[in-house]
């Protein structure tokens, strides 16, 4: 598996980056932490935007002083640093999608997505779909012509779904048609689902000891610097305000979030849903296409285990649990292996000074004997 060409390409690329910045600062070694970093940037900038946002489609107060979603976004754009915070929020979202794709490709290329990592892979797919949907709701919130077009396209696409289509549309629009409630629903989805990302991330991380959540400061600086410099070249824009009586026909497409809408324009809606669902299923099935022999989980030698919990602390997959030792034991605790989590890497063997844990297919006593034999020559 680790000799596959894709892995070689990845290694060659990383080798090259290592030569420039050393492995300590290689962003590819923090690929999982990059989306997480952008998530914090999005949370912070989103909080600032939320302070000004009024989620209504029409005049909330009086006809002369129009205050609605669109005008609040306009207002934000004109206050000091408002436009830049908007830009950061938008481009951090794009960057997050790029980072997630990078993360996904790297774990795929280096064969780190199967077997004992299946929970991470599946929860990762759910997280990716969530992020895409949250990003799309972000585009609805601006409430310019594009938002209106996107909202209508989404509602229309729900129409073709059997059984769940109607309730989904009702939930999406928060009623039969686009009203003020629709936008408050969009705001809720945008923010509420963002927080549910944290729950998804917990599942994503739960099978890992010490997940790498933050890239080193150098990489954080670099990423934020790239965002800030990008702002100047591509300042965020919005179209003219949405008017419910008109149907906008063309709009700019953000290729990271809005590609499904491009897809919708290329085929009929049944085919669109078929493509999306098939794509997700293929992604979910990807780990099962490759056949490899099963992992042989580490085994604890119950008689030798002293309950020191070193193996449990060092296991990268949180696969060793310390349980109370059986009655009659001299020690308080006993290590037990959750075999469904075990990767068979043997870090626990390296952690054990009492020879009390073994990989059944590769005994450390055999290895030591081999080492001693070669040393004696």
């Amino acid at each position, binding site marked *: 598996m680790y000799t596959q060409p894709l892995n070689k390409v990845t290694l060659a690329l990383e080798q090259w980056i290592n030569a420039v910045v050393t492995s300590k600062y290689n962003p590819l070694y923090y690929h999982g932490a990059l989306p997480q970093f952008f998530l914090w940037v999005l949370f912070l900038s989103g909080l600032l935007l939320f302070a000004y946002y009024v989620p209504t489609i029409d005049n909330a107060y009086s006809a002369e002083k129009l205050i609605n979603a669109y005008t609040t976004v306009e207002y934000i754009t004109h206050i000091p640093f408002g436009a830049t915070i908007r830009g950061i929020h938008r481009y951090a979202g794009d960057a997050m999608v790029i980072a997630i794709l990078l993360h996904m490709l790297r774990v795929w290329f280096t064969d780190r997505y199967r077997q004992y990592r299946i929970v991470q892979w599946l929860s990762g797919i759910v997280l990716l779909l969530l992020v895409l949907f949250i990003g799309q709701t972000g585009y609805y919130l601006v409430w310019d012509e594009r938002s209106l077009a996107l909202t209508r396209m989404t509602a229309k696409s729900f129409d073709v779904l059997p059984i769940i289509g109607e309730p989904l549309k009702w939930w999406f629009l928060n009623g039969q048609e686009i009203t003020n409630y629709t936008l408050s629903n969009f705001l809720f989805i945008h923010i509420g689902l963002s927080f549910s990302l944290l729950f998804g991330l917990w599942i994503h991380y739960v099978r890992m000891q010490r997940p790498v959540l933050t890239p080193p400061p150098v990489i954080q600086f*670099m990423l934020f610097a790239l965002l*800030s410099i990008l702002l*100047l070249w591509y300042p965020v824009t919005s179209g003219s305000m949405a008017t419910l009586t008109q149907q906008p026909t063309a709009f700019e497409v953000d290729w990271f979030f809005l590609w499904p809408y491009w897809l919708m324009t290329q085929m009929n809606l049944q085919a669109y849903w078929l493509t999306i669902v098939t794509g997700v299923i293929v992604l979910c099935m990807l780990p099962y296409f490759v056949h490899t022999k099963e992992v042989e989980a580490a085994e604890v030698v119950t008689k030798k285990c002293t309950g020191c919990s070193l193996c449990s602390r060092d296991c990268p997959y949180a696969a060793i649990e310390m349980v109370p030792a059986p009655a009659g034991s001299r020690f308080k605790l006993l290590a037990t292996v959750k075999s469904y989590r075990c990767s068979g890497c043997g870090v626990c063997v390296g952690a054990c000074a009492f020879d009390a844990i073994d990989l059944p297919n590769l005994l450390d006593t055999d290895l030591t004997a081999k080492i001693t034999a070669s040393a004696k020559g």
Partner: protein
Amino acid sequence: MSKVLWAITILILSTVCVGVVVFMPLAELGLLNSPNSVPLESSTWLQFTGIQNLVKFGRISLLTLTHGMQESPNFQYYAYFFFLGIALMLASVALIVIGHEEPQEKTVLPRKK
């Protein structure tokens, strides 16, 4: 020899960092938009002409780079973030240079305490 080079590198990098940090509040105040309003000549305790030229240079190059942006009322805020980005870039390059010393591919065990 290498230590002298090292010191010079650090000195240059830190000067650049400080320079950029000085730039940032200028951008924030919107002074990059109108360098003439920067009260540089009035300062008696330091000759600022060099910095003023730098400000002018920065403004002109920014405007050339971002054709059309000068119309935006938010130009100074974008400029602020631009310089913030440059500063962060330089800071990270400096950190990489400093952190580079540690060997990453070889670990020699330390001998006794």
